[in-house]
């Protein structure tokens, strides 16, 4: 019996709709898991007995889509706060690709995510979440504002709607496949 898991990372600035998107596509109610980080370097001069102060808990929301009996897709939302970058490496390790959700009212909030995936060569798509109402910017304006590489797909979605969120994932898979080297021979 074989069983393979695949990860997709849902990133974006704080409040861009990551948890909403994970929830709308997941076949199970979204789950939350926690990673405990011990900040050994912080507060070393503190009095003994305050050890608990040195632990930070990072919550991760995730969901699941069972593709078939052998393949299951996990969607992990990145922690919202920038100080949890250490967690991104674990999420991104071996992931198929990422979705960067963008709220056009707060474009700069997505710079860090885009930069992260670009630097590591992880394929990603940008999805403008229209949940917040009509977006008055054109795709070109958004691309320019985000300084997006021309090959990065840009989509619009309503992260609350399953069909819309699934379309974004389909776009990501198509992008990842297009970036693969051509198959050798027939």
């Amino acid at each position, binding site marked *: 019996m074989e069983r*393979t*898991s695949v990860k997709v990372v849902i990133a974006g600035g704080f409040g861009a709709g990551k948890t909403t998107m994970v929830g709308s596509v997941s076949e199970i109610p979204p789950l939350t*898991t*926690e990673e405990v980080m011990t900040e050994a370097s912080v507060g070393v001069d503190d009095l003994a007995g305050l050890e608990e102060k040195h632990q930070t*808990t990072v919550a991760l929301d995730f969901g699941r889509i069972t*593709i*078939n009996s052998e393949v299951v897709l996990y969607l992990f939302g990145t922690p919202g706060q920038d100080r949890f970058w250490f967690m991104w490496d674990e999420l991104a390790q071996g992931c198929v690709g990422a979705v960067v959700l963008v709220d056009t009212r707060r474009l700069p909030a997505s710079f860090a995510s885009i930069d992260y995936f670009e630097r590591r060569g992880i394929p990603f798509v940008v999805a403008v979440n229209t949940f917040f109402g009509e977006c008055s910017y054109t795709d070109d304006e958004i691309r320019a504002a985000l300084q997006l590489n021309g090959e990065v797909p840009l989509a619009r979605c309503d992260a609350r709607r399953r069909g819309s969120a699934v379309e974004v994932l389909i776009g990501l*898979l198509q992008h990842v496949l297009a970036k693969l080297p051509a198959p050798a021979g027939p």
Partner: protein
Amino acid sequence: MAGREPGEARDESDRLVPLYVLVNGRTTPRNAALDLATQVVALPADTTVLEPEYQQILRQCREWMSIAEISAYLGRPLTVVKVLVDILLEQDYLALGSAAQQTVYDRALLETLLCGLQRL
């Protein structure tokens, strides 16, 4: 996160044995490929000799399950669950699925994923 703020320490006061004793002082899994999406499943075995924490995990894994799900269902941090799973794998209580890391350049797998999503 219900009822607990991010950053607030988990209450471990209900534990009989400190976790670091349970995992024999192991702080990181020996199998470095263990990922939060890695799938495991319980193998048939007599589990009565195991500590309750291990038994809890094995009960969760009657079907294939990711380490992240085990962590969420049991309310234990990922780091701890990874080490516990690592030990159960070594002792053949659990079987291991394919590591997510190996799948990225697998065209057939990506096409399976794409078809699966298009069917939703």
